[in-house]
C-alpha cells in the first residue's frame, strides 16, 4: 500500500471531504527573503482567522498549512507540489520573488491547481492557474514614471537587484523613457542579498540624474540607502522612487536615511477608509502595535478574501469552477475596491505614490483616482510594443 | 619522587602496558630499556598525562596526579622531552624557549643557563625551529624542558640524532643536575652505555611488562643485554 497519499494523474482534486478545507501558505520562513515573506504569511493567517470566525467558506473552516520556501526557488517548487499532491489544498497563497513564482508556475499548471501571488511584479506573464493580486507594471511602475515626468524630472538612474523582476522592469522603464523623452543615465544591478553599494552610489552620484528608480529587493535596500545618505545625496536633490520598499522595510532601514524618498504602491498603512482601519487594527491586535502593515501584506490578505468570494460565487472549491467564476468578483479591500479581471486573472487596483515621512509611515502624494485596469502585457501602451 | 603503580594503558582497543610498576627515587636516575614497541614511550606518556591509564595510579611527590592535565603536572615540577625531536616549527628557536620561560619566576635565568648547556643553539635563536636540523631540534627540546627547572625529568631517547660529543655533554649535564639540584630522571634510552652509566636503577620493559630490574652502572650491562635478547 502506498503511504496513504491518493492522487490522480494530471490535476489533483482538492480534498474537501471533511468539514474543513485546506489551503497552502507558501512563504520563505528562513533564508534571506524571510525578512519580507514572514509578514505576508502573518497577513494571510489573519485573513484566514477572520473568515473562520465569520463561518468559513461554503460552511467549511479553512485549515491553513504552512510550508517554508526557504528563499530557495527549487524548494518552492517542491513544497508547492507537496501542498497540492499530499495535502490536496484547494488553493495556495504565497511566493514573493518572481524567481520563486517562475519556479512554481509549472507545478501549478501541470497539476491544475491555484496559486494566489500577492506581490507587485514585472508583468509579461499570465498563467491560467495563477491569480495576481499585487500590481502589474501599469499599476505601479508606469504611474511611478508618470509621476516623475509630471514633476519635471528629465533623467533617471536605474538601480536594481539582479533577477527577473528588476531586469524586466528596467526594460520596460527604458522603453517608456525613450518614448517620453526621459534619459536613462545608467543601470546597475547587485546580486540579491548584496550589501556593498559604495561603487554603485558613486556612479549614481557622478551621473547627476534627476532621480533614481530603485528596484532593489530585500536586504540590499538597507545598504543602498545608508550609502546614499552618507554620500550626501538627498531626497530633495535626487529623489529615489522605490517599488519594493514598504512600511516593513522602512522600519528596518530607518527614517534617518529615508525621510522624503518616494515609493510607488497600491496601498499604504495610511490609506484611508473603513476597510483599512479594520485591517490595521486587527493586524496590530494580533501581531503587536509596533508592527506596520504594507502593500504585499494587504495584497495577500485581500487574496484570501477574493478566493473566498470566487468560491462562493462558484458554489464549489473546484479549480475550474472557481476560475470560471472569477471575472468581476469584487472585494472592499483595505486599499479600496478591487475587482478581478477574469481574462488576465489580475485585479484592478488603485495606483499610489507616497512619500516616506519622519514617523516611518508613508503618506500618499498622488493616486490614480480610480482602480487601474491590469494590463500585464502593456498592450494599451504603444511604446511597449516589442517588449513581449 | 615518582611512582607509577600497576598502570594499564593503551590506544583505542589495544592495550600496550599491562600493569607496570616503576619508581623513581628523589635525586636518582632510573632507566627504562626495551625493544622497539615494548611500550617505553607509552609509559612516559602515561606518566606526564598525555595518555589516561585505564587502571593504576601515577603518584608524584606523594600526590596522586593521575587525573591531572599535563600542564598541571608540569606546574608541579614534572618535565618531559618526547621522542622524535619535537618542537613548535613556526616559532623561532628563541620563541620555543621563551614560551616556557614566560611568566615563570627566574625564567630568564633558566633560559640563559639552558643555552649555556647547548651553545650551538645560540647561533640559531632567530631561525624558526622547523628549519633546524634534527639534532639541533633535539637539543632545543631538552633545553626547553630544563627551563621549567623541573624536579622530575622524563626523557624519551634524548640522545637520538645528537652528535657524539654533545651526547657526552648531555650525559654530564644529567648526572650533575641529578647530583647537585636533586633532579630525578626517568630515562628511556637505546644507547645502553649512556643509560647504564647514568642510571641508578634500570627496568627492562617487554611487551608492556617489566621483566627485569636492577641497579645501574656499567657493570649491569651483561645482565641487561641478556634480558633484552630473550
Amino acid at each position, binding site marked *: 500500500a502506498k503511504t496513504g497519499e491518493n492522487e490522480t494523474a494530471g490535476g489533483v482534486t482538492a480534498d474537501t471531504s471533511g468539514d474543513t478545507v485546506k489551503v497552502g501558505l507558501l512563504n520563505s520562513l528562513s533564508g534571506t527573503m524571510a525578512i519580507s515573506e514572514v509578514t505576508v504569511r502573518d497577513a494571510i493567517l489573519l485573513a484566514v482567522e477572520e473568515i473562520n470566525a465569520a463561518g468559513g467558506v461554503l460552511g467549511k473552516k479553512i485549515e491553513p498549512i504552512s510550508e517554508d520556501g526557504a528563499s530557495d526557488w527549487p524548494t518552492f517548487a517542491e513544497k508547492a507540489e507537496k501542498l497540492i499532491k499530499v495535502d490536496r489544498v484547494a488553493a495556495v497563497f504565497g511566493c514573493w520573488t518572481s524567481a520563486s513564482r517562475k519556479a512554481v508556475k509549472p507545478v501549478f499548471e501541470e497539476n491544475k491547481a491555484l496559486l494566489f501571488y500577492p506581490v507587485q511584479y514585472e508583468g509579461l506573464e499570465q498563467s491560467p492557474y495563477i491569480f495576481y493580486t499585487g500590481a502589474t507594471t501599469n499599476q505601479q511602475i508606469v504611474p511611478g514614471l508618470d509621476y516623475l515626468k509630471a514633476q519635471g524630472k528629465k533623467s533617471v538612474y536605474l538601480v536594481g537587484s539582479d533577477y527577473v523582476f528588476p531586469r524586466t522592469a528596467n526594460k520596460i522603464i527604458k522603453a517608456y523613457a525613450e518614448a517620453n523623452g526621459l534619459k536613462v543615465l545608467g543601470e546597475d544591478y547587485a546580486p540579491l542579498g548584496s550589501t556593498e553599494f559604495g561603487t554603485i552610489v558613486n556612479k549614481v552620484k557622478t551621473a547627476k540624474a534627476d532621480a533614481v528608480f530603485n528596484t532593489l529587493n530585500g536586504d540590499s535596500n538597507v545598504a543602498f540607502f545608508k550609502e546614499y545618505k552618507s554620500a550626501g545625496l538627498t531626497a530633495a536633490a535626487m529623489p529615489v522612487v522605490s517599488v519594493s520598499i514598504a512600511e516593513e522595510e522602512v522600519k528596518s532601514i530607518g527614517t534617518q536615511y529615508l525621510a522624503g524618498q518616494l515609493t510607488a504602491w497600491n496601498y499604504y498603512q495610511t490609506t484611508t477608509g473603513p476597510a483599512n482601519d479594520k485591517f490595521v487594527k486587527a493586524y496590530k491586535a494580533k501581531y503587536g502595535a509596533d508592527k506596520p502593515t504594507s502593500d504585499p501584506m494587504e495584497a495577500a490578505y485581500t487574496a484570501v478574501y477574493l478566493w473566498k468570494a470566487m468560491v462562493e460565487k462558484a458554489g464549489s472549491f473546484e479549480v475550474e469552477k472557481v476560475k470560471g467564476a472569477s471575472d468581476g468578483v469584487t472585494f472592499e479591500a483595505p486599499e479600496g475596491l478591487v475587482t478581478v479581471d477574469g481574462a488576465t486573472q489580475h485585479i484592478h487596483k488603485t495606483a499610489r505614490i507616497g512619500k516616506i515621512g519622519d514617523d516611518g509611515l508613508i503618506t500618499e502624494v498622488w493616486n490614480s483616482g480610480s482602480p487601474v485596469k491590469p494590463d500585464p502585457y502593456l498592450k494599451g501602451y504603444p511604446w511597449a510594443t516589442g517588449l513581449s | 619522587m615518582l611512582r607509577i603503580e600497576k598502570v594499564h594503558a593503551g590506544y583505542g582497543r589495544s592495550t600496550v602496558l599491562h600493569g607496570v610498576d616503576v619508581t623513581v627515587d628523589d635525586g636518582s636516575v632510573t632507566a627504562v630499556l626495551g625493544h*622497539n614497541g615494548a611500550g617505553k614511550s607509552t609509559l612516559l606518556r602515561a606518566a606526564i598525562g598525555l595518555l589516561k591509564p585505564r587502571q593504576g595510579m601515577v603518584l608524584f611527590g606523594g600526590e596522586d596526579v593521575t587525573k591531572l592535565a599535563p600542564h598541571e603536572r608540569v606546574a608541579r615540577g614534572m618535565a618531559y622531552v618526547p621522542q622524535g625531536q619535537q618542537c613548535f616549527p613556526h616559532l623561532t628557536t628563541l620563541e620555543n624557549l621563551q614560551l616556557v620561560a614566560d611568566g615563570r619566576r627566574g625564567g630568564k635565568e633558566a633560559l640563559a643557563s639552558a643555552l649555556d648547556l647547548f651553545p*650551538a643553539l645560540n647561533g640559531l635563536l632567530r631561525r624558526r625551529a622547523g628549519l633546524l636540523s634534527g639534532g*639541533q631540534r633535539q637539543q632545543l627540546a631538552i633545553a626547553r624542558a630544563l627551563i621549567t627547572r623541573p624536579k622530575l625529568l622524563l626523557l624519551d631517547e634524548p640522545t637520538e640524532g645528537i652528535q657524539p660529543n654533545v651526547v657526552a655533554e648531555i650525559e654530564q649535564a644529567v648526572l650533575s643536575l641529578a647530583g647537585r639540584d636533586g633532579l630525578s630522571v626517568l630515562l628511556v634510552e637505546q644507547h645502553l652505555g649512556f643509560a647504564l652509566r647514568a642510571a641508578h636503577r634500570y627496568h627492562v620493559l617487554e611487551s608492556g611488562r617489566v621483566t627485569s630490574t636492577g641497579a645501574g652502572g656499567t657493570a649491569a650491562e651483561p645482565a641487561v643485554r641478556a634480558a633484552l635478547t630473550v
Partner: protein
Amino acid sequence: MTAGGLSIRGLRVVFDGFVAVDGVDLDVAPGDIRFLIGPNGAGKTTLVDAVTGLVKASGSVRFGETELLGRDVHRIARLGVGRTFQTAALFEELTVLQNLDIAAGAGRGPWTMLRTRRAVPDDVAFALEAIGLAGRRDTLAGTLAHGQKQWLEIGMLLVQNARLLLLDEPVAGMSHEEREATGELLGKIAADRTVVVIEHDMDFLRRFARTVTVLHAGKVLSEGTVAQVQADPKVQEVYLGHAAAESEAVEA
C-alpha cells in the same frame, strides 16, 4: 648491472643567505656503503634533500650518467633514487602491506593501478620478512612504534628497487640487536646498489661503514676509512669529542 655511482660536484645550498651546503664534492662508488657524519647542522640532511630534489641547489649531482639537479622529486625517484627520512614518514592510515605495495608500484601502468591487489607481490613478501614485520602486515602504519616505523621505511626502499639509497639516521631509536640486523641487511642490499647512510652512532659506523665522509659547516672536513677519520684530530675536535673518542676507542 650496477647503475653507476653518485658523483657530486660543487654542491651548494643556500637558505635566505645562510649557506647550509657549501661546495661539496663527493663520489660514492657503486657497491660502497658510505657513511656521512658530522655535527648537528653540518648539512648532511640538506645534502640528501638536494640530491633528491627537495631543496634547490647549485652545482652538479650525477647518478650514473644522469644529472639530477633541476628535476622534480618524483622524477628523481623514478631514476632509482630512494631515501628515508630522519623522522619517519609513512602513510599512517594504511597498513604495513599497503605502504610497501605503494612503494613498489611507481612504475605500474594505469590498468594495474585500477585493479585490486589480489596477492602479495614477491618483492613485498620478501621485504616484509626482511624487516621483521610479516606478523604485523595488516597493522596500520600509524600505530607502529618508532623503531618499527624506521624498519618499514627501509622496507619501502627495498621494494622501491632503488639503485641509490640515501638513509637518514636509519637506526636511531633502535636497540642494539636491531641495529645489528639492520646493518647486516644493508650489507646485503649494498651488493648491487650504492648506499649512503647518515648516522651519529659510532658503534654502528664502525661495524658497517666501508668509507666515511665527514661534513662540517657545509663543507667536507675529512674523508677516508673509518680508522682514518676517527684518528683525524679535526673530526675529534668538532664531532667525536676527545673523551668520547677515547672511551669509544677503548670499547672497540
